[in-house]
């Protein structure tokens, strides 16, 4: 599969990058690791005439325990044992992104901003043409939930929920300067599903910041997928908690792979703070998570099954974080 022609730009600083993106507004994509964008370009899924490669922007590449550049390679984060020991849930999520070969090129920023996925979107041009193009690419209707207003493609990154429960913040650069905000605020959960983030045109995700308290949290990530060695999440649940004298002093849960944006469960977890994390309370919370999520039929597994599994995986992730259980696929 050959790519349609585009002009490749290779800026070397954040300021140069955002100025270029502002000038090319709407006609350019950022290229990070390329493991998501280039397959989509090969399938002629919304290719643009300009690509801005970020690999030469040194500031984006560095990572430390509390600030991770958006272009940090997933494999480098995964192999940083000190980092992994500090944030076990995040390390589990990192180790379950695609394959080692994809992680060798894939980046933190790329995973956070990965294109949403759908059976009717991630198909060849001819396949999509034969059915009629969808709302997300060249068409005007959704084939999953038939209507013309909203796209239901699934958010399929593993790292967003794992970072949300740690209280991470994103650092964003734009033509007028830099701003910071909670990582959850990056995602637009109330829009049309096509516009997926609150990034303004030309804005660039520069880094993720982890608060000092994050390393004192016990965390876990549990992921459901069809092939444990490769696939995008059919669901992924992250938990982080801290106990004091046997009672929960902090509890955060978040999920990806279920709806068109990663979602936090603050309203469900907040009432448990101050209580003992008993099996019964964990089971009740996990049931509530399963009831609250609304997957649609646009990934490999049936949405009713994913909804049931959301409860199962929430329970497993909660118990793993409480008990400090070692990482494991789905276990």
């Amino acid at each position: 599969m050959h790519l349609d022609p585009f002009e490749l730009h290779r800026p070397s600083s954040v300021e140069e990058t955002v100025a270029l993106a502002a000038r090319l507004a709407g006609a350019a994509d950022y290229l990070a690791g390329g493991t998501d964008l280039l397959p989509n370009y090969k399938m002629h899924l919304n290719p643009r005439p300009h690509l801005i490669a970020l690999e030469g922007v040194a500031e984006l590449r560095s990572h430390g325990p509390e600030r991770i550049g958006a272009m940090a390679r997933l494999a480098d984060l995964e192999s940083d044992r000190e980092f992994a020991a500090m944030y076990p849930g995040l390390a589990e999520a990192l180790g379950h992104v695609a394959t080692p070969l994809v992680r060798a090129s894939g980046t933190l920023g790329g995973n956070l901003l990965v294109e949403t996925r759908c059976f009717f979107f991630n198909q060849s041009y001819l396949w999509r043409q034969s059915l009629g193009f969808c709302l997300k690419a060249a068409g005007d209707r959704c084939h999953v939930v038939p209507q013309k207003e909203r796209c239901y493609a699934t958010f399929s990154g593993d790292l967003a929920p794992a970072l949300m429960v740690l209280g991470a913040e994103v650092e964003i650069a734009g033509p007028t300067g830099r701003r910071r905000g909670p990582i959850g605020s990056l995602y637009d959960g109330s829009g049309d599903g096509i516009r997926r983030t609150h990034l303004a045109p030309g804005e660039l995700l520069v880094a993720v910041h982890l608060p000092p308290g994050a390393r004192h949290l016990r965390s876990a990530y549990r992921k459901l997928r069809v092939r444990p060695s490769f696939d995008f999440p059919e669901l992924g649940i992250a938990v982080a908690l801290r106990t004091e004298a046997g009672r929960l002093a902090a509890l955060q849960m978040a999920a990806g792979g279920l709806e068109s944006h990663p979602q936090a469960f603050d309203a469900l977890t907040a009432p448990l703070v101050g209580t003992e994390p008993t099996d019964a309370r964990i089971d009740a919370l996990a049931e509530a998570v399963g009831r609250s999520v609304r997957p649609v039929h646009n990934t490999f597994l049936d949405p009713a099954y994913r909804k049931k599994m959301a409860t199962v995986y929430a329970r497993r992730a909660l118990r793993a974080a409480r008990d400090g259980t070692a990482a494991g696929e789905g276990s």
Partner: protein
Amino acid sequence: MPPRPNLRLEINGHPVEVPCPDERILLDLIREDLDLTGSKRGCDLGTCGCCTVLLDGRPTLSCLTLARLAEGRSVTTIEGLTPHGGLHPVQRAFVEHGATQCGFCTPGFVLTAVALLRDEPHPDRERVVRAISGNLCRCTGYTKIIEAVLAASGGA
């Protein structure tokens, strides 16, 4: 767009200078422009690992790499693994353990294994399985490939 200068990079230890449009994929450059057909096009979407090359020594999916981003860098394909001919110890282990059937995936597996053993000379079985989990083989069932990599590490 102004005309681009030729792309310069090192392939298997040799400097190469070739015309290269911005949208050229590294795998296409290697196979079609440089006639190095050892790197295979399998899925062409990063799933199968057949196109694996070493980019500055790091296993890399050449089907998902823009050739222009390899500018000034070093690419090793299966043809360049033993510059003076003969078999690399990993290749010899593949032969001795019957780790190849149709052979299409073999270059990718070998290069992934070479990088693993360079970084971790004595991996255990679980580590080998994990390291090769981005390379797909539709023939062997993996057992012999895992045995070959362990044998090449001196650990089988």
